[in-house]
């Protein structure tokens, strides 16, 4: 069987790898972005000089040949679903028996005046990075519009090159549409501590031309202020990269609509990763989750389906992680920005404001529902087990050392967390386990 995969990102490549593990089908991976799979999440590190593009490529070149995964650098401009053919922009054609669409995302633009000027860019692809690099030469000031994960990465990138940067964020504190208020404030302060000019509650009104077709300044709606700059980063989210399929017979809403087997409305066509929209996501989950981990899980799931072992896509317990300048962030389970009804929250933070732990639990059943961490690493398997098995918050706290995943000799915070709980609830619980791998292994096997 001849399988074509459009997109060589994490979802497309994971699918290809698993199909190879499970079968002998011929596999063609087509992408016009880069010859080889690289880690999109590492784009910032290339700009910051931590790594070269080469270092962000997870597999060496021999890997593809050895695993008979055929890489094709072409842009697909049209898909003929009926005769099962791809048409390349360069003019060629490519036939397939089964097709996997792993097209990724594209940056949002909200019709701002001036958004198509030169030196106004999002950050998604290698080509975006290249342009950022090009306009950075001699750049004296940059403005980043939007306060999400990519926004702060872009700000950090400019900051690393000592280019002054302003972050224009709509919300009242950084990312508080995702983070609970306490955490959002810690991060907002952390951004300011790095001398990044964070403007909260500010909307972009227009991007102004410097007279040569290039950006010269931005105008803030609320204050009417004009901020002079030579580059504007647009990081107000992403959307599925499906524009070229809009007029086809493929069912598209925001993304490519797929069932629980990741199948589209067309026979033998699947969609995975950022571009897929689940018709019926699991309760509490969004229909499009544009993150690395779900792309990887979808890739593996679809490979099984294609290799005659149909599997329903089930992303399990939500987790994610990020890094805001120097503060790492991890989340397990459900931690919405506003505390839902019937949920209680234990929030602890260190005196220096660099570390915090939030444990959400059900107000009546007292079972753990979510974990939010800043500057502290927890062990995913332990948190998942607690959440999955609806463990009582007090059992979680007594065993909290089992979750610790920080480097050895890391400061102890466990006592202080328990004290806070005891103080808040009038209980008198105590630690019953240590930071010991043997105890963790026993716990996970129990």
């Amino acid at each position, binding site marked *: 069987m001849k399988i074509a995969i459009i997109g060589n990102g*994490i979802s497309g490549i994971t699918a290809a790898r698993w199909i190879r593990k499970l079968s002998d089908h011929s596999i063609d991976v087509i992408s016009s972005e880069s*010859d080889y799979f690289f*880690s999109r*999440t*590492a784009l910032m*590190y*290339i700009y*910051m*000089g*931590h*790594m*070269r*593009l080469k*270092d*962000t*490529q*997870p597999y*060496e070149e*021999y890997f593809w040949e050895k695993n008979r995964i055929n890489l094709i*650098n072409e842009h697909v401009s049209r898909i003929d679903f009926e005769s099962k053919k791809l048409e390349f922009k360069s003019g060629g054609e490519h036939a397939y028996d089964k097709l996997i669409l792993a097209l990724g995302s594209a940056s949002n633009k909200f019709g701002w005046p001036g958004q198509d000027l030169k030196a106004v860019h999002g950050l998604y692809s*290698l080509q975006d*990075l*290249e342009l950022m*690099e090009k306009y*950075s*030469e001699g750049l004296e000031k940059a403005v980043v519009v939007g306060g999400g994960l990519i926004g702060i990465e872009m700000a950090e990138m400019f900051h*690393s*090159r*000592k280019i002054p940067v302003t972050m224009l964020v709509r919300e009242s504190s950084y990312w508080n549409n995702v983070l609970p208020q306490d955490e959002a404030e810690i991060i907002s302060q952390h951004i300011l*501590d*790095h001398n990044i000019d964070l403007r909260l509650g500010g909307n972009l009104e227009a991007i102004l031309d410097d007279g040569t077709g290039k950006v010269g300044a931005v105008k803030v709606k609320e204050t009417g202020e004009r901020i002079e700059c030579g580059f504007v980063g647009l990081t107000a989210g992403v959307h599925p990269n499906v524009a070229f399929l809009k007029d086809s017979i493929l069912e598209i809403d925001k993304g490519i609509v797929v069932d629980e087997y990741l199948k589209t409305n067309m026979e033998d066509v699947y969609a995975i990763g950022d571009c897929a929209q689940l018709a019926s996501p699991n309760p509490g989950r969004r229909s499009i989750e544009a993150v*690395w*981990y779900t792309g*990887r899980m979808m890739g*593996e*799931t679809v490979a*099984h389906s294609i290799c005659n072992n149909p599997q329903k896509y089930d992303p*399990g317990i939500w*987790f994610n*992680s*990020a*890094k805001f*300048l*120097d503060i*790492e962030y*991890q989340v397990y389970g459900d931690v919405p920005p506003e505390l839902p009804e019937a949920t209680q929250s234990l929030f602890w933070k260190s005196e220096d404001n660099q570390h915090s732990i939030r444990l959400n639990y059900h107000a009546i059943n007292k079972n753990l529902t979510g974990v939010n961490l800043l500057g502290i*690493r927890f*062990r*995913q*398997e332990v948190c998942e087990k607690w959440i999955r098995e609806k463990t009582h918050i007090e059992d979680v706290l007594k065993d909290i050392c089992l979750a610790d*995943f920080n*480097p*050895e*000799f*890391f400061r102890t915070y466990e006592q202080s967390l328990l004290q806070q709980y005891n103080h808040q609830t009038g209980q008198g619980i105590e630690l019953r386990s240590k930071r010991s*791998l*043997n105890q*963790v*292994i*026993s716990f996970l096997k129990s």
Partner: protein
Amino acid sequence: MAEKVYKSMSFANPHPPFTDGVQKLAAAIGGVGLLLLGLALLNIKQVQNATMLWVSLSLLASGTIIFSARAYLTKSAGIKNDGVWFNNLTNRGLWAWVLGIIITGFYVLLYWFPSLLGLNSDGNTGLVHFFDPLSMALKGEVASQWFVYGTLYTLAILIFGIKFIWKYRHNKYQIVRTISVMFFQLGFAFLIPELLIRLNYPYNDFKNMWPLNYYFFDEWSIKGFLSSGNFGLLMLLFGIAMIFIISPILTYYFGKRWYCSWVCGCGGLAETAGDPFRHLSDKSLKAWQIERWMIHLVLLFAVVMTTGVIFSFLHNNPNGYWMNKGLFVALIAGLCLGTVALFRFIPVFKNGVSKRVNNIISVLGIIIPGIVYINYATGSGNAVFLNFYDLRKTYGFLIGAAFSGVIGVGFYPLMGSRVWCRFGCPMAAILGLQQKFFSRFRITTNGGQCISCGNCSTYCEMGIDVRSYAQKGQNIVRASCVGCGICAAVCPRGVLRLENGSKDIFEKTDDLRTQHIQ
């Protein structure tokens, strides 16, 4: 298509000012210190005095310390790798080559032309003479080229150790570990041996064990211990206990890191002075294959050479020791055949290596005792087809000097800081084998959190492709891992943790935590 463009992307950077005015001043201060050493090397009379030695060393230290304080303490604590690949010195640019050539040149003089450094039995001149006052003060003798080397080496570990601690000041593991290497270098490698000499005992660096210390079993070394009374005997026994008891126990509990990145001097220099170059190690599969061949061949070389040295020693000194040739031959045969049996019959070992490697072990395990036995049976002190004395000399030249010194340190700026530890060190080879097969140590991968970014692999000084395991959700158990913990420090998603546990030592790598469908 685009490959060309991206490559240039790493280089065509507008070169933002990574160093500021204060740092330039600090560099100048250190430069003057270095200049004084240079003048001493040229034997300029005006600088040849104790004051100037102190001035020179203090300037070197304060220059480096001010420079690093400025680089790290003015910024918030966190990973400090900005611009590493843009910097000429840390990206194999011109300055890297200049530095590499200077260090290599220094080692060549040190090992083979010490007279050019000023070593002279009728009274030192030049650089060696420059260090006479310090040597007199410490051990009451004039300096040798080795004293000059030891002093500069220790100074480097101390001042770059401070720099390293500041760079990773948010990470206590790094701080504790670095204080440890600084302590062992200053105390065990530098001060104690000099004091021993002052007290008329043989020079001994207690932590420097065989086979890294390849002359431990040389005739002069053994005789030195044995002629120094009970304390000498104690030192000899301690050295042997290190090899056969202390080291295996510690390696079982903590992995080879207890030695390679907490105690060892070679590791100490690599971790501190070599830190800016750690990302230059080659991560390719090819490099890993070469590494495995080379390091195990060196180990084999060291074992055969040492066996020969001990055998000839016993041959030349047949009486007076509890050990004799016959016993020794039996011991060697036992050890070798035991190893063969281990890899033939014990599943962990058997499955841990390929069939080909297992066959090689078997062949060697029979040939080595065979050679020794032939010598024994023919009553010859030197092997029929192997001249042990020549072997020892060749080892000292090739491995002891050329590899560990000239290449090991001289190539820091070109091949990364652990070239010797990775490709050449027989000690690392032994500890690595134990770490792989019988140790509680591993690097745990945190569930499915890896984003395949590559920071861990890039900054692994041992050239381990850490990511290839992390992205599968598999624990990292590699013979070469020195447990420096930098991969875990640079990981932006908190995916890696160095830890020890006894419960699963034979299944450490079984879980694949990113595998979603079971």
